[in-house]
């Protein structure tokens, strides 16, 4: 059974239900791969082998008696900012290196209830702040397509783990592109649902009005299956939306004839590398072949996304991260002299440079005298961007464009230039500001590195997005490509 890792999450779920193989076998196979590749990729912060094997044995018993849910016995991994009871939840930070969560996030609990088995917690940029996974207390994650390169971020550990087939699917969070950008750079499928579709309860907050949990998988079909189990209203999250969750899996096969696709004019700009643009244009031709009608759509305020985001997100983060004060849990400095010293050194020593930079930015933009000029203004621009999307979706069913301006870049290439790093999020942030769902789908390679196509839908349009991506994946095999050495 050495080939189990080659199966997709959907195939594994079906095979387990048909009892072609056992959960213990599947979990062992993936744990073995994690063990042998962790040293190279650094995709995990914690691996919970014992717990996973015990749960696998339980899953096999359930399956043997004809029980179990949609994902019973299927291994997954969680980004290390989803709280997992009894397991360290570090957020990639020294601040929470010693933090063992006493409770499960709603996402974790729902996937558990569906029968999924967590193999561990994936590495990430500290508190989800970063686009390269270099901002982790546990060291950078490496891109399995080329270990000298970044996997993207902040869900870089989840992306690298799925790309390397260390796990068939993983959770991620996307505040400004943190699922889609690493999915693109690692050649896998990733979806950020509508804001409010997936509960944020138990997801350590970065920027509350933007954070949204989602999944990284090999295929759109896998994403549909996993997301269906995760999504839905949660009374513990006041911003989650009380609307039924459609059966994303059942909606996958709908034909695309007559689909109205808007090309995001503002994304085909001079920052987009020629090779990447070619791959995107080729993907669009596939959609035309499938019967879609393409037209250019302009969202004039979209270029303001990056400055808007870098006001709103740090502002919320500066407040969200105030609870990490060394008093109740997490890192506490040694022998504090007094209260102020306890705060200053615990936070000074516990947080990394990028987190501090954003806390300072956020504190500044919320300060008396600056609030109107920055925060309030950013909120107004955010509304304009949201209106742009609304207008666009009155005309087209989905929007398409590039996911990233370039393919994966070298580790260390942008660490000294935060602005260059921030600009890497230029195509991703709009969807977060507007709260609309968006996904990244592999659409080819440039110089051996994967390129992602971005598909954006209207609020609660996940079923359509996944359907569009799935039909494309029936025509192409980019998503099935595995990095050399990981087949």
């Amino acid at each position, binding site marked *: 059974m050495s080939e189990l890792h080659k199966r997709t999450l959907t195939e594994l779920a079906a095979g387990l239900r048909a009892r072609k193989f056992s959960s213990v076998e599947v979990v062992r196979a993936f744990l073995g791969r994690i063990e042998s590749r962790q040293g190279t990729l650094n995709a995990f912060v914690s691996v919970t082998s014992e717990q996973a094997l015990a749960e696998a044995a339980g899953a096999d018993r359930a399956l043997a008696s004809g029980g179990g849910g949609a994902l019973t016995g299927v291994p997954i991994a969680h980004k290390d900012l989803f709280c997992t009871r009894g397991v360290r939840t570090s957020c990639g930070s020294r601040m929470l290196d010693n933090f063992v969560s006493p409770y499960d996030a709603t996402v974790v609990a729902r996937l558990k209830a569906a029968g999924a088995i967590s193999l561990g917690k994936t590495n990430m940029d500290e508190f989800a702040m970063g686009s390269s996974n270099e901002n982790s207390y546990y060291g950078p994650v490496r891109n399995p397509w080329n270990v000298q390169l970044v996997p993207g971020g902040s869900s870089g550990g989840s992306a690298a783990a799925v790309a390397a087939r260390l796990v068939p699917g993983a959770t991620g969070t996307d505040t400004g592109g943190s699922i889609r950008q690493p999915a693109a750079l690692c050649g896998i499928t990733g979806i950020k649902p509508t804001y409010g579709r997936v509960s944020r309860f138990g997801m350590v907050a970065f920027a509350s009005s933007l954070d949204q949990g989602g999944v990284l998988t090999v295929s759109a079909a896998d994403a549909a299956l996993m997301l269906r189990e995760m999504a839905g209203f949660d009374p513990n*999250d006041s911003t989650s939306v009380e609307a039924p969750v459609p059966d994303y899996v059942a909606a996958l096969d709908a034909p695309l004839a007559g689909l109205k696709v808007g090309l995001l004019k503002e994304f085909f700009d001079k920052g987009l590398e020629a090779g990447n643009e070619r791959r995107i244009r080729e993907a669009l031709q596939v959609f035309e072949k499938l019967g879609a009608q393409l037209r250019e759509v302009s969202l004039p305020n979209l270029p303001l996304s990056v400055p808007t985001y870098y006001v709103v997100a740090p502002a919320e983060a500066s407040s969200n991260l105030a*609870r990490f*004060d060394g008093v*109740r849990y997490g890192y506490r400095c040694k022998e504090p002299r007094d209260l102020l010293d306890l705060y200053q050194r615990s936070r000074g020593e516990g947080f990394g440079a990028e987190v501090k930079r954003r806390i300072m930015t956020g*504190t500044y933009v919320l300060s008396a005298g600056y609030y109107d000029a920055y925060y309030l203004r950013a909120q107004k621009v955010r509304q304009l961007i949201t209106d742009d999307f609304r207008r666009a979706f009155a005309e087209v069913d989905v929007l398409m464009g590039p996911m990233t301006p370039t393919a994966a870049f070298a580790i260390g290439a942008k660490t000294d230039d935060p602005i260059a790093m921030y600009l890497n999020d230029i195509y991703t942030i709009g969807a977060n500001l507007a709260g609309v769902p968006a996904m990244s789908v592999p659409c080819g390679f440039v110089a051996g590195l994967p390129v992602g196509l971005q598909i954006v839908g209207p609020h609660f349009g996940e079923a359509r997005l996944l359907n569009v991506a799935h039909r494309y994946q029936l025509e192409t095999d980019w998503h099935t490509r595995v990095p050399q050495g990981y087949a």
Partner: protein
Amino acid sequence: MSAWETVIGLEIHAQLATRSKIFSGSATAYGAPPNAQANLVDLGYPGVLPVLNAEAVRMAVKLGLAINARIARSSVFARKNYFYPDLPKGYQISQYELPIVAEGAVDIVLDDGALKRIGITRAHLEEDAGKSLHEGLPGVTGIDLNRAGTPLVEIVSEPHLRSAKEAVAYMKKVHTLVRYLEICDGNMQEGSFRCDANVSVRRAGAQKLGTRAEIKNLNSFRFVERAINYEVSRQIDILESGGQVVQETRLYDPDKGETRPMRSKEEANDYRYFPDPDLLPLVLSDAFIEEVRTTLPELPDQKAARFASGYGLSPYDAGVLTASRELAAYYEEVVRELEGEPKLAANWVMGELAAALNRENLEVGSGRLPAARLAGLLERIADQTISGKIAKEVFEAMWSGGRSADEVIDAQGLRQITDSSAIERVIDEVMGKNPAQLADYRAGKDKLFGFFVGQVMKATGGKANPAQLNELLKKKLGG
């Protein structure tokens, strides 16, 4: 006439009497062991989120309706950011730009009996902080987060108050109101009802407000009065000696009877308020507000007006008797049982009963002397079974012995003698025993009338009806 005018505004914090906290399911009961009532939300754990308690909203709306305020159809929770160990999240969830209640007022009664309207700028919902503990913890500070997340409504008055007395009258009025509405237990010792006072003085007739000091955390009416009086004379002293009042936060020390600056580095505090992205705007429908309106009880002012007109009480008495819902209910029950005599009932409830309760530090609702029992006593006064003077003795016996008025009267033989022939018989006896005094009286020594009254009263154990006795005695002595 003073050369200075005092200007005061109060920020009253009333803990809402919900069973659970404003954003979590933890209990709010007072007095639990430290942190026994703090769950992960209250502790500010990573990943937890607030969920608004609908009961707290309902209570705030009740208050807003009772003070004739505007109820916001959409209000917004904001984060007030600052670091403190008793503030687990590093921010307090409050309401800032868009509070749930705005532009209300209450009336207070001044010394001369005139009404004064005190404007209420706003009332907003917020969560309370925890407490730092020092007692019995040498060298360290303990944190008790039981109180963290307890719902508060902060009621901010306009600077309409002109003396410590007015401030106390206003605070008492609001205290009465929240207890009528059953949205706050009003327990000041436990901190359920407390206030910050903003105090400034200015030259009489000046338009511009003086620089104010804020006195924090006053938790008794007496402290409010003393703290403000102290602060006013402190500020006047400074200004009269050519100095300037510093805008600052001060604490009142009840032992020393003075205010002093709070030891803190908060002069540059910038709370960086912004809307809490974890909570959607609180949207209230007209239907909800109207539904809450139907749950309003008769309010203190309405009740006092009804007492004054319906029972013929003075505005002062009506005010005293409606100061609490329990007292008013007690009074009305006495009147109902008595089937009339509202003034007699008022005198006894405000007099003997209030004094007895006060003496033993009891609440009117304690059940020590049920209203029906007191009515039973007053009935015996009304039907002249006993005199008012005897009634006081009976009251004391009822108070300590738990018996009804009739039981006391019968057991102690206190029934008043109203039978003329019985009184005449005693008079005859007394006259027979004192022939010399009788002769002197009849010879013109009128003063001896009192002597005969005393003798008859002595012989009847004080039970002879005084008016009847007077009349009969006059007739008999006159021969």
